[in-house]
Structures are given as C-alpha cells and as structure tokens.
C-alpha cells in the first residue's frame, strides 16, 4: 500500500493535469496512486473529490482541475479496464513517427477489420480502437494546433484506413453494382470516421497542450518590449505585473523580518536575568535597526513612453504594500505628485486618472525637475532612493542637469531606468548622457523582466 505503482490511466491523467498548469509533484503523484488504490475508479464523484484534494491546492488550480478532470474522464477508456496491457506497444511506436507502413494493423482488436467495424456500426469498439491507435501514435506529445492533421492521419493509418481504401478500390474495380454500392456505403462511413478522429484530436490538443501554450505565451510576454505590446495582451500583462509585484513584495518582506534577528545581546540578556543571578533564562537578541526604505519615483508619462509608463505605474501601485514609504510623481511638461491617487483609487482608475491629468503631452525634463526641486526637494534625505523612469528626451529644452546634480548630493542614490536601447542614448534630443554622471545606476528597462530585476535590486539594497 505504501507505494503502489501509478496505473496507466492515472499516470496519463497526471500528465494531462500538469499540462493544464497544475503543479503536481512526484510525491503528490504517489499519494494519488495510493488514494486511487483505496477507492478505485468505480465512483467518479469520489474519484474527482479525492484527486482534487491531492492535486489542486489553490482556487485557480481547483478550477483548472475540474475542467481537466471532466474533459479527461469523459472518455470511457476505463470501461474495458485493459489499458495496461496495451501499453507496451506505445513507446516503440511513438518513437517512429514516420511509420507509414504500419497502416495495416488493427492493433489488438482480434483481427476484426476496420471495414467490418464500420459496417457493423459498432461505436464502442470503434471508440476503443481510436483510443488505442491514438495512444500508439503518441497523441500525448501533441503540442501545437499545426500538428492536428498529422496526428489525425497517424491515427487513421493505425486504425487500418489504408487497407480499407485498398479494399474499396478493389470493390470498385469489380464493376458490379453490389461492389460499387458497398464501396459508396463505406466511403460515407469513412468520412464520418475522419470527422470523429479530427474531433478527438482537437480534444486531446486542448487536454495536453493548453498549459504548454499558456506558459509559452507568458514567457514571450515577459521578454517582449513593453512598447510593442498588443492590445489583446494587456489583460494578461496586468496579471503578470501583479504576480511579479506580489512575488517581490513577499520576498522583500521576508528579508526585512529575517534581519530583525541578530546575535545575542549579552548586555541586555544579563540585565534581564539579574533576578536569576545572571543565569540566562530569557535571551535578548540584538536587533538591527531597519532603515525605512524611502523611495521616490519620477515617472515620465509623456506620449513617447506612455505604454511603458502604464506598466511602471501599475507596478508601483502593486509594490506599495511592500514599501512603507514611497512617493510617486508623474511628469510630462510639468510634474505632479500622484501618491494619493495610487493609494486611494483602484489600479485601473488610478492609471486613467493620472494619464488624463498629465499624460501624453510632450515632455520637458528641465521644467519637471525644477518643479520637483521647488515642491519636494526638501523631503529628499540621505536615505532616499530616487528612481527616474524616462527616455530623457526633453524635446531640446534645457535639461537642468544642475537640479539633478543637487538631487544626487542630497539623496542616497539616483537610479535611471530608460526604456530605450543603449545605442539610442544620446542621439537626437536624448539627454541621457548628460544626466548619467549624476546617477548611481543607469540601465535599460524595456521589458517586464528588466523591470523586475531593477526593482528587485532596489528593494534588496533598501532593506
């Protein structure tokens, strides 16, 4: 009972579940096998509840699990219970995809030909034959919709379509009305079969490839340039940004707490335990004073970087939880503080509001920095990290590097995130190289992944 081997249907289901985005570890797979041993496959409701307890561990996973369970167990492949003895033929068949000659075999169907199956209209046996042929064709390796026809063809071949087509040809050759009629009859049946197989492959594609496709898309989005994103990706992107911010927030909160514990504070421990003659029953630990991270973010929201700015604002909105003291500013022609808006409004509204207040204009860096100096320079201390996001293109206005110079003297450091490629810096109206000497770090930040890395570094040092 301790480690029952996962039976074939369960093993395949686990694979499907992983494909659907459930994270099923090996240990959980073993538990699932033990559980199935205990309850069997007979009662689907119990099976569903049980595997749900073991495999799906978040609300999202529960939803994905229910979907995939229904999809997978809708097929009646356990009816015969002989799934295991067919398995041995699978690996070698699957490893030779160009197996064009294998078309004659009908697998283990007791020599019944496809033709007689079709004319007998024996749906159950046909379905089983299809399942088996699919398994032999390695359907579980299907990943992309472009492979649909390939797999459908392979399955049909394995079910013996070629032999049948030869037979039909022979019938037509006889020229008798009987033979022609029979060929026509089979022709119709074969068309139905083709549709059924195509349907079947489609379902399997959803089953096996969904998670894969999702993952692929997300990876793509993470490294796509933020300014190039298409509208339909925005929603998915928002979710990604939120996830990323949450991850950073969690990681950051942890470091901060961990640093609270230091070494034993001998002096205070002794004093605390005076009552027991100095025997240290109660220990007092040294505590590291954690510097409150102070971050000021200046975000360019002018037309040229608007797409990028949206994501940064979103990111800042999400990261607010982790940082206790963050002030955000947005600027284009001039500069305003937006901390309040980000704090009080839901994220979508906040961003729309900021963009409508100040966004999309042409940027004037000098003017905006001057605004900052007038209003908020006095709040900058030697513990403040200033993050500036922008392309440093001030439309040939005075860059006011003197303000940035004073800012760099007052602040702990200045970090400049530029969405442009390094090669574009300094070209045209870009003042990047004029600002760079005053910044502690100037870096390209054009994808979500860059953004994550940059913010992560900032948080690391802020603690």
């Amino acid at each position, binding site marked *: 009972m301790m480690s029952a081997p996962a039976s074939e249907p369960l093993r395949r289901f686990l694979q499907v579940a992983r494909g659907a985005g459930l994270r099923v570890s090996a240990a959980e797979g073993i*538990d699932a096998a033990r559980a199935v041993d205990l309850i069997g496959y007979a009662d689907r409701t*119990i099976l569903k509840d049980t595997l749900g307890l073991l495999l799906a*561990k978040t609300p999202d996973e529960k939803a994905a699990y229910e979907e995939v369970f229904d999809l997978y167990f809708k097929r009646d492949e356990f009816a015969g219970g002989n799934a295991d003895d067919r398995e041995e033929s699978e690996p070698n068949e699957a490893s030779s995809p160009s197996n064009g000659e294998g078309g004659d075999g009908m697998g283990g169907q007791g020599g019944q030909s496809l033709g007689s199956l079709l004319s007998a209209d024996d749906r159950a046996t046909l379905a089983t034959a299809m399942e088996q042929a699919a398994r032999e064709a390695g359907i579980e390796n299907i990943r992309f919709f472009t492979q649909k026809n390939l797999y459908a063809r392979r399955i049909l071949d394995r079910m013996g379509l070629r032999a049948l087509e030869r037979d039909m040809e022979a019938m037509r050759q006889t020229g008798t009305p009987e033979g022609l009629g029979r060929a026509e009859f089979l022709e119709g049946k074969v068309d139905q079969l083709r549709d059924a197989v195509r349907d079947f492959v489609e379902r399997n594609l959803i089953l096996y490839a969904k998670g894969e496709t999702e993952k692929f898309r997300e990876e793509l989005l993470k490294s796509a340039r933020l300014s190039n994103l298409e509208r339909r990706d925005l929603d998915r992107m928002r979710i990604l940004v939120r996830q990323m911010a949450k991850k950073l927030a*969690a990681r950051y909160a942890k470091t901060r707490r961990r640093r609270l514990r230091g070494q034993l504070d001998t002096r205070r421990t002794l004093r605390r335990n005076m009552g027991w003659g100095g025997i240290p*029953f109660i220990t007092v630990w040294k505590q590291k004073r954690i510097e409150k991270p102070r971050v000021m973010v200046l975000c360019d929201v002018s037309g040229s970087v608007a797409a990028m700015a949206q994501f940064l604002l979103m990111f800042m909105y999400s990261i607010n939880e982790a940082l206790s003291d963050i002030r955000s500013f947005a600027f284009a022609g001039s500069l305003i503080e937006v901390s309040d808006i980000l704090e009080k409004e839901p994220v979508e509204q906040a961003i729309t509001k900021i963009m409508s207040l100040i966004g999309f204009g042409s940027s004037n860096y000098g003017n905006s920095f001057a605004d900052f100096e007038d209003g908020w320079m006095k709040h900058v201390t030697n513990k403040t990290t200033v993050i500036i996001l922008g392309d440093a293109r001030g439309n040939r206005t005075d860059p006011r590097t003197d303000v940035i110079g004073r800012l760099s003297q007052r602040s702990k450091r200045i970090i400049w995130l530029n969405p442009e490629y390094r090669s574009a810096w300094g070209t045209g109206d870009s003042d990047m190289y004029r600002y760079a000497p005053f910044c502690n770090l100037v870096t390209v930040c054009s994808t979500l992944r860059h953004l994550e890395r940059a913010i992560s570094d900032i948080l690391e040092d802020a603690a």
Partner: protein
Amino acid sequence: MAAGLTFPASDAIRLPNSSLEFDVNDALPLGESPLRSIDAVEYGLSEAGYIANRQISTAIYMAHHLQKPILVEGPAGVGKTELAKSVASWLKLPLIRMQCYEGLDESKALYEWKYGKQLLYTQILKDKINSVIGDADDLATALDKLHAFGDVFFSHQFLEPRPLLRSLQEPRGSVLLIDEIDKSDQEFEAFLLEILSDYQVTIPEIGTVSALVPPIVLLTSNATRDLGDALKRRCLHLHIGFPDDKLEAKIIGSRVPGIDARLLKQLVSFAQQLRAMDLKKVPSVSETIDWARIMMLLHTSVLEVDLVRDTLNVLLKFEADIEAAGKQLAGLTHKARQDAGIA
C-alpha cells in the same frame, strides 16, 4: 478569525469522555473503525452535529488512510474550526488546538524546558555535589564524574510539552488543530514540515520523538497570505465554501433544534441573498446560526422588515454593509418570505 465560536480559545480542549476507559474497538485503526468508509465518516460527523458534504467526508477519510494532514481553506465562519472539533468529539479523541499568530515560535508550539524546576533542583542538589565529586583531585576528574550522570536536567521530567508535542504523546491518538496557519510566520511554517510529514519532532537534547498514534491533523487558513508550496504539498487541500441553501438549512436545523421549518427557510434565503450582494464581509454560517437563535428567542415565525432591521447587526459587522443592505431590506425580506412559500 472564525467568528462565533462557542468554545473557549484555550489551546487544548479535553472532551469529557476522553479520559474514560475505552473499548478496544474504538482504538484506531482497526477493521471496524469508524473510519472504514466515506459514508461512515459522513454519518459519524452528522452524529457529532456536523453536517458534512461529500468532499469534507472524503477528506477526513483520506486523511486517516493516507495519514496526511488536511489544509482547510475557505472564508471565515464556514465551520473550518468546527470540523476539527466535531471529528474529535465523534472519534472520542482529545482535541489539541494551537492558535497561530505572528511571532509564534517553537518554545510555544512544541516544547519548553521547565526553567524554574531546573533551577530549583540545581539549588536543592547543590549540597549533594560534594558527595558526587567528593575526592576528585583535579578539575578533569570532577568533570568526568559529573558527565557520568548524563543530562539529568535535560530529560523528559523537565520538558514542558506544548500542543504539538502533546498531540504526539497522546496514547490513543488525537485530533490536532493548527488554527489559522496563515497568521504565523513563514519560518514557523517551515518548522511544521517535519511534524506534518513524518509525525515526529526532533528535540536536540533528547532526540526524535515519534507519534505513538499518528494524530489527525487539520490546518486552517483564511488565505491572508499564500502558504508555501512545501506545506501545501504535504497536505490534502480542502476548500470549504459557503453551503448551498439546502445544506445550510440542514446545518442550522441541527444547531438550533426545534426551529420552525418555514422560519428556517426564510432565514436561509435571506442569508443567501446577502451573500450574493457586494458586501465588505458577507454573513458566515455561524452568524446565520446566531441569528436563527435570536429569532427563536423572539418567537418569530415570519420575517418582518423592522425586526430584520433591528437584528441586522448580528449578520453584518460593518456599518457600510448594514447601510447597503438596509436600503434593500424590504425587497430582501419579501423574497425570503416568497422562497418559504409565505405570500
């Protein structure tokens, strides 16, 4: 926080009959154990006054047979804590409860040395030390002699077991409830892993203590933070949501005996309608039960708008929610009456 609990929040609740002598057949896990099938679990829980749905009974059954802890998640007041209590009272096992909070550490959860006792004993035995060391010529010999006595002061006699250790030491097994695990620190979560997967703990001075009988472990969480993957992997994951109207009626019926069937229908319908609204905190099952009790005390049989308005603060705990629901009170009450078949 699971609202409306009637039990005191002490860390251990001994049920009255747990100390009585027990029938051998009660001991787990024997063939005729009360956990022999999922139906038996469902029946047993209902005997203990807990109306479980199929998923819950399956979880308890699996927890016992796979010997895995259950992580119960769900909104506050759907009976997560109550489930543990009911399991304990049904199986006649002691319920050992550990409430988690930020800063909870192993000295409060697992064990502590009885410092006071150790100190006292050292003082008392001070005089005896001469007879032990006695004629030792130098420090090395004296130390050797002392070593021969072993770690007397770090033995079971000086160990103060806290909930986790206690649940391992129960001779007949126990039900261990680790309440609101999401309130504890991440470090504590990691510390729990050993006890959750192997039912044993390691005490440096003594060694590894294994469970006499593996306890049934339930962890509850309100999802105030995401739990670690390592913890989730070791647990069965049970999500208890709000019950549907039929189940809720059954639950209230069992908790408030003698309630009028038509009143019950109205109450349930009303509560379910509130849950469909966009509220800060929707009424939990335990709050509906409280409300039903009040309605019983007031000898109500038909819901009236004024009465509902006066007692709404039992169901809703935020001023803004009461205000929002107050505006639609007439409609809600009317619908509730309709559902119960009262014109």
